[in-house]
């Protein structure tokens, strides 16, 4: 364990793993993330020379919020899970910090005209770190007795979790690019639909695994493994073959998925309450019970999904406008 400097230092100094200190560091990191996000988002909006369609503005807003929510979910979820893992590997600090920067970067969108290199780099590094995180998690699992066994899939580092970071980065990137460019809305819409569909499927897979671990003891636990894949199918269809047909019900479905994110958080809060001594015993039960920050990522995906549909609508209106102009 020679390379785990922080863990070893804490352990030597306090005879404890991170404990309170690590938690403090995380809280500080989160705080910084928020401040940074606030600063980045504080920019003149009205000085917008080009008049954009309402749909485009809506799409940009949704894309930004979606990416930010994904980042926030990573931030809180990884902070919680890595705290549970006592930050015994120094790399574990990277996840919540990246979650915080991903969230901040997402909130700083949409930028126009200015290239925003810093933002691009941040989005891309989220993706990179997410991929590295998956590698770490895979390594963690394979080193444990049992290897890729159910016990490790259930309880060791979750393979799918760093995926949310990748998604946050990618969504940030798409938002970034669509803010920069005009006229590519249709293409961006298709990209975003495809991306969201993949994310929904991945996320549902992760939920399926964890709810299976919980033996689907409550029927409501089936919701996040049925609605999102349906929405994903719809979005994928739109990505492959954009068509106005079914877009209204699909929007409703995406709103439902988004709602699931909020309701799910509530359900998880109730789940925590069903653990021994409930919320009174929060120091144990928030870690042992269902993870509170997890469901909210569906809210993010619901938003990016709708952003995709909005972009498609913008894109489909544009050629028509152009055609009309030509006819005059």
């Amino acid at each position, binding site marked *: 364990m020679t390379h785990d400097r922080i863990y070893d230092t804490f352990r030597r100094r306090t005879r404890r793993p991170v404990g309170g200190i690590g938690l403090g560091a995380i809280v500080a990191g989160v705080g910084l993330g928020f401040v940074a996000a606030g600063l980045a988002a504080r920019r003149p909006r009205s000085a917008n020379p080009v008049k954009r369609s309402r749909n485009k503005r809506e799409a940009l807003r949704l894309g930004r919020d979606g990416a930010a929510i994904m980042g926030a979910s990573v931030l809180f979820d990884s902070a919680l899970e890595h705290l549970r893992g006592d930050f015994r590997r120094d790399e574990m600090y990277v996840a919540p910090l990246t979650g915080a920067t991903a969230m901040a970067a997402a909130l700083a969108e949409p930028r126009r005209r200015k290239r925003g290199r810093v933002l691009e780099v941040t989005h891309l590094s989220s993706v990179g770190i997410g991929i590295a995180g998956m590698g770490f998690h895979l390594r963690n699992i394979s080193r444990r*007795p049992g290897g890729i066994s*159910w016990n490790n899939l259930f309880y060791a580092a979750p393979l799918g979790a760093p995926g949310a970071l990748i998604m946050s980065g990618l969504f940030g990137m798409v938002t970034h690019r669509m803010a920069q460019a005009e006229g590519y809305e249709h293409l961006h819409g298709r990209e975003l639909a495809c991306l969201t569909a993949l994310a929904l499927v991945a996320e549902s897979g992760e939920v399926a695994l964890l709810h299976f671990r919980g*033996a689907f003891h*409550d029927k409501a636990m089936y919701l996040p493994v049925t609605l999102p894949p349906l929405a994903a199918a719809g979005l994928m269809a739109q990505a492959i073959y954009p068509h106005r047909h079914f877009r209204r019900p699909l929007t409703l479905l995406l709103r439902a998925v988004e709602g699931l994110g909020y309701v799910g958080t509530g359900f998880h809060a109730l789940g925590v309450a069903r*653990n*021994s*001594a409930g919320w009174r015993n929060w120091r144990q039960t928030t870690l042992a019970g269902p993870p509170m920050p997890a469901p909210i990522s569906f809210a993010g995906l619901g938003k990016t999904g709708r952003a995709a549909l909005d972009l498609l609508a913008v894109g489909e209106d544009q050629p028509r406008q152009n055609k009309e102009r030509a006819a005059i």
Partner: protein
Amino acid sequence: MTQDAPRNDRPRAVNGHAPDVFKREGQVPMREYPKNAPVDFVIVGAGCGGSVLAAKLAEAGMSVVLFDAGPFFQPRRDFASDEREQEKLYWLDPRISDGDDPIELGANNSGRAVGGSSVHFQMVSLRFRPEWFKARSKLGYGRDWPVDWREMWRYYDEVEEALKISGPIRYPWGPDRGRYPYREHEVNEAGLVLARGAEALGVDWAPTPLCTVSAPSGKSPPCAYRGMCKIGCSINAKQSMLITYVPRAIKAGAEVRDLAMVGRIETGADGRATGVSYYRDGKWRFQKAENVVAAGYSIETPRLLLNSSTAQHPQGLGNADGLVGRNLMVHANDAVWGEFDEEIRWYKGPPSMATCEHWNYADDDPSKNFDGGYSFMSQGPLPGDFAGTLTSSTGMFGDDLLEAMGRYNRMAGLKMVGESMPQVDNRVTLADETDELGLPRAKVTHSFCDNDRRLQGHGRKFMSRMMRAAGGKNLFETQSTAHLMGGCPMGDDPETSVTDDMGRVWNVDNLWICDGSLMPTGGGVNPAMTILANAARIADRIIDARFD
């Protein structure tokens, strides 16, 4: 060794109410039956066997009164995180233990509470290997059960579902058993010691199927890994009889009489059972019944039958051939303990989270020099328990002991559940002395045979190898026993068994047995699931017979 006056000296299931086991205070309604009108079934003992039978018979519409000598606890109020206080769960009234290898009783294998030994059992929930039900004809040792394994397999399914056993998705040994109703628990470090050792030696291991939920179920929260299962689960994660089948029985109209010690099963002039005499609330009383079931486990059931002798049954009920109390079996509980560099902290989580059943299935291994089998599990004894193990096996004391106990957090252990052969001379008889109620006490005579000793030696050697392979140092071995089985084996032949295949005592057609004492062989796994499945089967057989 509880020093204070017992707070649990008054019956609680009275006046049409029973304690609500899910609350600190509060009650649930309970039906009551008059004593002088016969109820369909009186069941003596509310443990694994008695509770399942009571629930299923009551649900089939029969009138049932379930007796237990012990108190009716409310875990959330009565169960402290304290080893000494919790001795109130055990059968502490002395029994005399004799033989070449006298067994330890009390906390080691007998509960005395509504819920029986399941209140403090360690929740390891394994199934018999199919061939063991025909051990004599298929494997050449012991006795045959009068039951087909496939039938038992169905009842294992039933009770595992009812108790929401949390176990692996695929169990590595034996025929496919589907997945357990709840998922396996996270294996603690003590369990990973077994896992690492098993992987190093190239044998399978599995997260132990446990009778405590890994996710919420009904009013039970998921296990909080407080590790005090052996002294009672105060948060109700453990699915003991007390919080599962007993409430089910009450809901279906059964009456539970707690702190009611049954002294005799009364029989009429025709030799049939007429009811039971029991001591409750300071007085001897009598309950009339059409049928009586003894479910007091392998010592109290034989004792009750022997104590119920009459002119017509001079040697006790069902004992014309002198078989009652014989063929008592235990499990060898030999263990290997080792020290590790890092802190294992084995007190976290249920005590046995990983298991290895390799030697229950390895018939052809050339090193196997014994009949029968054994499994073993990772360990997590509480400090008092472990200190007792240390001193009784090594005699150490003083600073040596403090030093050894100072390494408590760095210890890990493997402990076997080793089959022992049924032998007629291992038996329960009546002692010359009597207890406080004037009932003759039980005397238990037990000796291992050569095969038992070979099996134990093999187990200790194998577990030591595994412990070393996992990184354990300064190993030491201990020997003890656990679990009781047999005493009133069921069978097809009245000459060699006490009951028929549905637990009915030969020659007394309304007297039944339904508990661990029916087991003709002990197998190499913990017995509770087998006792439960057998009780569920017997219940269905009784219901079928009645409504046909």
